[in-house]
């Protein structure tokens, strides 16, 4: 199994190790992942305005690179996945966008959405198989009640993302069960955490994130796990405030596979005041 890999800015940031963790976990599962040679920011938000072309270009370049390599394009960050998958769909289905983008990017062969964009979770479920994951687990997280947090961008709009039921998803729960923990279902798992507002309107982001954490706690979760770096940050920073650990699900996976990584959590950066890794603390 081979994939091209688009890490994206956040997971590539110096202190952000979850990208590497995920890739080593994939390696342990026999998946060969090659990072794209040169990649630019995916664009961070999908340009909803139909006439925006420039903001789609970098995603298309990544897609073309993957096409050249003849491999599906693996993504991990929810935002990157969302942007690249939707741009890819536009390239496949919207001839207007396709023509204009191709005339900008001018690849040797016009790009028409040929690359398959695969999320890390999707790769685990459909290419590795959760059964095989379970078989490779050496340090199961037995006894842990883990609440999967999907957030918004991973699932919606389902017609574009299309790998799980947008209202009653199961892919993260499948992985949580595979690594030996007990998945906790709670209604806020696919409601937005408000991460996007964390800069603009911290209060609102706090209210949303707290609601998510409260809901998970009420359903008896020991911790929350997510794959989205933005959610990870926001839930830790603005939601849990120390009351509930929030983990990167791929780190939990890596640990279960015996790779011994410190479950990275919260703000990917090191606290500038006390050098503590988890920023959900008072210093």
């Amino acid at each position, binding site marked *: 199994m081979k994939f091209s890999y688009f890490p994206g800015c956040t997971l590539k940031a110096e202190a952000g190790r979850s990208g590497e963790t995920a890739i080593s976990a994939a390696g342990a599962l026999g998946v060969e992942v090659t990072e794209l040679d040169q990649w630019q920011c995916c664009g961070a938000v999908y340009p909803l305005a139909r006439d925006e072309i420039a903001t789609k270009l970098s995603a298309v370049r990544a897609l073309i690179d993957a096409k050249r390599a003849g491999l599906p394009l693996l993504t991990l960050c929810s935002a990157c996945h969302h942007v690249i998958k939707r741009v890819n769909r536009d390239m496949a289905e919207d001839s207007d966008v396709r023509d204009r983008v191709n005339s900008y990017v001018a690849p040797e062969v016009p790009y028409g959405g040929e690359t398959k964009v695969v999320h890390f979770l999707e790769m685990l479920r459909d290419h590795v198989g959760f059964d095989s994951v379970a078989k490779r687990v050496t340090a199961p997280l037995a006894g842990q009640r883990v609440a999967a947090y999907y957030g918004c961008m991973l699932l919606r*709009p*389902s*017609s*574009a993302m299309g790998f799980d*039921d947008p*209202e*009653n998803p199961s892919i993260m729960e499948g992985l949580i069960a595979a690594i030996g923990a007990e998945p906790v*279902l*709670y*209604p*806020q798992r696919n*409601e937005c955490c408000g991460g996007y507002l964390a800069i603009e309107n911290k209060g609102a982001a706090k209210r949303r994130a707290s609601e998510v954490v409260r*809901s998970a706690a*009420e*359903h*008896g979760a020991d911790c929350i796990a997510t794959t989205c770096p933005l959610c990870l940050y926001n839930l830790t920073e603005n939601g849990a405030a120390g009351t509930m650990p929030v983990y990167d699900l791929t780190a939990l996976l890596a640990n279960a596979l015996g790779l011994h990584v410190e479950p990275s959590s919260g703000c990917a950066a090191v606290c500038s005041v006390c050098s503590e890794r988890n920023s959900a603390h008072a210093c």
Partner: protein
Amino acid sequence: MTKIGVFVCWCGSNIAATVDVDAVSEAIKAAPGVVFATNYQYMCSEGGQAAIRSAVAEHGLTGVVVCSCSPRMHEATFRKAAAGAGVNPYMVEIANIREQCSWIHKDKAEATAKAIALARAAVAKLNLDRPLTAPETPVTKRALVIGGGIAGIQTALDVADAGYEVDVVEKSPTIGGKMAMLDKTFPTLDCAACILTPKMVDAAAHEKITLYTYSEVEKVSGFVGNFTVDIKKRARSVSVDRCTGCGVCSEKCPSKRAKSEFDQGLRERSAIYIPFAQAIPNVPVIDRDTCLKFQTGKCGLCEKVCPSHAVDYSQEDEVITKQYGAIVAATGFKPIGLERFDEYAYSRSPDVVTSLEFERLCNAAGPTKGHLVRPSDGKEPKTVVFVQCVGSREASGIGAMKGKPYCSKICCMYTAKHAMLLREKYPDSEAYVFYIDVRTPGKNFDEFYRRAAEEYGVHYIKGMVGKVCDEGNGRLTVRASDLIENRQLLIDADMVVLAAAVEPDPSARALATLLTASMDTNDFFTEAHPKLRPVESPTAGVFLSGMCQGPKDIPDTVAQAGAAAAKVIGLLSKDRLVGNPCVASCDETLCNGCSACERVCPYGAISYETKTVVDRGAKDERRVASVNEALCQGCGACTVTCPSGAMDLRGFTGRQIMAEVDAICR
């Protein structure tokens, strides 16, 4: 060569005042084939008809042209007159010189010239007419009703009461359909079973009605008046003749884990079961998929305990073939599945139920014996949120549609009913109804809805539920908009009731294919005319009853069932069907076998077969079209789609119309 007589009518002064009738009858004598021409004051009068008779006798006419009023007025009259005089009635053509000429033109010379041209066109057409005989076919005086719900039962009863035999085919083990599952009915709140079960008993007891339950239609051939139908009676594994309905078998059956279809899965049933107490026939059926005897070979308990030795594991499916004159589709509906509507937490929480499940929870014969409680913990609900239009009135956007584009029509009323029932059972409860529109056209309907709001204190909120959160501990948080007050509501609810859209029963699609009856994009049967022939399918002899044609409530269903019955009775009352001879026919020597005509025929009247075609002595094996004249209605769509001209329309042949064109463009 046709010997044509032309009769120009004065229509009193209606024609004669503007058209020089003498000039017309004189001029037309020169037209090819015309051997006689005259004019008369009133051609439609007895005198006029007598003139036709005597001219036929005197001149040996084989065709008649009448220049008179519109054929829509008197074509039938003159055809009859011609037939009386010994001329084939289809050798009559009308030139419309009143509506199309004398009444709209003032200049006599102009009008006369046009009248002559119209007469020439009629003569030209008549020259190419061939005598036709209206086809007659006998009628099998028995009707088949497919579907044993209220629609099918009502149609069957009405047809049977008129003295005709009716067979009812029902795929489930009992008749009664969806109505049998309901608790109360709007707008009167009388109990569904109280009004339905007597009709079920009547149908079972009626000497003219035969019920085939647990049966399906497998094959249909033939056409109006003469259908041949194969009905597959699935093996019940219990002898209907011996069984007394005592119920010991179900009681003793050790396999009790199947979900009760009748109770919407809210209760478990045994493998040998009677769907509900008033089922007809009141004979159990063995569900072979869950029966231990059939699955493992062990058990056989029901056979041992049956006091009348009715259990018979060796029973096999049986196909019976019968003849029918008319077929009524009454296949009904089902609520749509809500798998894709999990924003309402339907699959997460047992306390989020569909309206039909709510009916069962209210029903005295239901899984809770009418004690309305939450399925999760058996507690009485205090706050219930009703959501209307779940899956109705949708449109596709960025993705495919989850629901249906139409209004399901019945939800507004039954939701009002449910809210009232709740408030009646638990006066301290709260009922919230979220609506987009409240649609209550119907006798006493709006009054009913207003009663729910005004007398029962049901909270009607214009807005929609966006998310239902199962908070655990039996709490449901409902997040919804209140558009009138422009706010978002969070309601702590004990139950949520979803008014799921209705859709045609899935069996309808296959049946439509068997019947060559057309369907719309939503799989509802199409009617022959949306306004004027609402209970007939475009396929002759096939009629529509109830929800299979479109969403409708019980009063509408019963009305339509009766209307369908009236149409069936009208058909069966005839000994022979006189058809329209002006139908399409295929010249096999010209047919290419391309199927284009088949695709455009709205009546499924064209079929293809491979046969030996003899063309001027040469034999050839070919795929050719054939027209079922009993089904063809004579529209002519096929004739134009056929490039080789193999298809032609009798009475309006290509050559005839071209002859008319030639005549009027002269």
